[in-house]
């Protein structure tokens, strides 16, 4: 993982959310074209299972990175120190927001059938 103080951290959390979101939508669309399960199966299908697993893994990673950024010990002196604090704290918030967003969107697979 790149340093918690790297400015890219300000984009990584939501970027991962966006990549996960696109993969969920794209994957669902492709899976429904390639091998749609029977509608009567409801939400308990292999597609929803894969999507749920992807959701939980992504959420877990985002929470882990939240913790990493929040707990990163501050180093550097002069004007570097507050700049680093700004990046790591805001990045931690962004990772957390992304984790919440991932879980909120992803949990819909528990209640809705995939291809109907």
């Amino acid at each position: 993982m790149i340093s918690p103080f790297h400015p890219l951290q300000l984009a990584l959390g939501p970027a991962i959310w966006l990549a996960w979101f696109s993969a969920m939508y794209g994957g669902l669309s492709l899976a429904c074209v390639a091998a749609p399960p029977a509608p009567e199966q409801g939400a308990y299908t292999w597609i929803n299972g894969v999507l749920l697993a992807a959701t939980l893994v992504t959420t877990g990673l985002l929470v882990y990175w939240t913790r990493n950024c929040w707990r990163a010990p501050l180093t550097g002196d002069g004007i570097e120190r507050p700049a680093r604090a700004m990046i790591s704290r805001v990045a931690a918030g962004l990772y957390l927001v992304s984790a919440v967003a991932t879980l909120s969107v992803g949990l819909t697979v528990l209640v809705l059938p995939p291809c109907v």
Partner: protein
Amino acid sequence: MLSQLAFPGQNILTPEIYNQVFTMHGTIMMFLFAVPILEGVALYLIPKMIGARDLVFPRLSAFGYFCYLFGGIILVSSLVFGIAPNSGWFMYTPLSSSVYSPGINSDFWLLGITFVEISAVSAAVELVVSIMRTRTANMALQHMPLFCWYILVTSLMIIFGFPPLILASILLEVERAAGLPFFEVARGGDPILWQHLFWLFGHPEVYIIFLPAAGIVSTLLPVFSQRPIVGYRWLVLAVITTGFISFGLWVHHMFTVGIPHLAEAFFSVASMLVAIPTGIQIFAWLATLWTGRPVFHIPMLWILGFLVIFVAGGLTGVMLALVPFDWQVHDTHFVVAHMHYVLVGGMLFPLIAGFYYWLPHLSGRMPAGALGRWGFWLTFIGFNLTFLIMHLTGLLGMTRRVYTYETGLGWDLPNLVSSVGAFIMAMGLVATLLDLFLHFRFGVRAKSNPWNADTLEWATDSPPTSYNFLSLPDGDARHPLWDRSDLPASMAQGQQWLPRADHGRRETLGSDPVTGRVREIIHLPGNSWLPFITALVLAVVCVSLLGKNHVVAFVATLIGLVLLLRWSWENGAHPRIEPNTSTLPGDPPLHSRTFDGPGVWGMAVALLANGALYLSLLFGWLYLWAVAPQWRVPGDMPPLAATPSLLSGVVLLVATVWFYGVLRRLRAGAVARIQMQLWTIAVLGLLHVLLLAWAWWRSNLVPGDSAHDAVITVMLIYISLHSGFALIMTIMQALRVRLNFAGPYELVVVTQWWVYTLVVYWLGVIAILGVPLAWGSG
């Protein structure tokens, strides 16, 4: 339009003219007003707020402005001639296709908007690099004015958000003009692809318009509350979150096209999530007001109007995010009302607040009182009368884009009220504009920093000089003018950075993107006719394509390319640009003597936009392959000859790695035989292009027959253009080395282009040759 709808059965406008008017209303407001005016405000303010003398690429800004001007004139002229676009501002196919819109109405939109979008993307590149690299000394990220954060995020959204629409417009224009099918079902295309590409742009667009306006609010509220904003970091977090989430909402405009409920649920939840960062901002603003001592000057009236109207618009937005509700009100006046609450409340009200606030900065005079207040109240009352009642009209079932309606449906009274409200609102806006104009003549002379603001733009003269500051300040505080009241005087006396002017250069500081530490002196380019002439030539391309004169269009395109290359030639360390290279002892180096000039950043950001366009094309390819109802792969042969295309890719790889190696050696101080190596790389580049041409020639593509061949053709054109430019740029670098005026950072710029070309080439080959293998032949 609202006069036409005031009573049932009216004929003030014919159906055809009504179609043109509502299409152009949306088009002008979104593409010619909202985005350009906000970018214009940002281009004016950002250098002053970050303590710079100018934007980092002033010629690019000039080019963007003239593209906007000429593109706008072309687009609006269609209205004057009665042949304006008439398919709605989102130009859905097949309505906008040549079958159902055979005239040139749709062409005006497709060509004009693409032309104008050059302007939006140019300004975005300019703003990103200016904010990242030209902040004044020690202005670290945590010291940046909030407005800069908003504009940085907005500009990056433009970089990623506009290319899908640029691509879609190009594809539809090519379909209409040359018959290549992309959106036509019978030949393997899909009109829903247009909707995806359009809304991939269209939804972020809403936030591209809202965020700068919210930046104005976050700038003005602390000043008129006379206290720092509450929750600076929370606001930064909210702005970045909004920027990203807004790219995950586009399908909520397509809930009725027939996609699985689960996919709709993804977008429904994401659409509700975006309310959270917006809520954070609203609570931060309210907390600032609550804990401050608000002063209700005219700008604050507009800010309060914004808060009321935008919150209402946001609430109906959450309602529309619910799929069943959206199905009920889709394409009704409810959506029109919601959209105006969000856009007028979220953008126009803060914009006018900003105008009033920064007027003294621009004119040196204060706004007057009475007329401005009349303007606000008439606009506020008129707006709510028009659009609050329009929600009801929509709930009663009135669809949008109808030029008239029958009486007895319950729509008569709400439509009449909306029309009356529109006239009141128009009077309010006229009063406001009158007040703004009159103040230039009758406004009281403004004292220095009349609102007691905290940001650096108020340290300039009012009106400001062309160079903004005589010397550049230290930016090591979030509220420089509140913390150091003597700062403007000290800057004006030349006691800060870069006071010297006897070298004849236009200079500003180049700083570290995170800490703001000074790294180099950026030497800004001077005046030039090239941006104007190049934009004019592109206007000729646009007009000749409208007139179907393809020879003139082709010749003008070539002239345009020559002009752009000429522009790039006299740049960097060219002696005509930089006759005097001396700096004082202890000063940082000139950027042209470093490996990290602004051009490197400009190229990187421009390539992000370019990459977004290419990814959109790849998305289109995969989408059609998987979803298009009549997709077919013509013939049994692979669409591209494998051997020459793979060979071409290998040569490209060798050339790119070699170019990168030259750069590495130059960084290490080895400057011997660079020219010879560049010539050799150019030969490799030529070989790559020839092999690509061979692969294309052997491919037997018939682009007019199927979407399959049409998309591959576009991909090959795209790749060929990039390969060709890599070759030309390498030749130009070799010539510059020969003439002894190549700066080191120029090689970094060209290296990025080579690497990008390599990536898109191999992605293209994998998409063309690999997808059929993985997916089967459809």
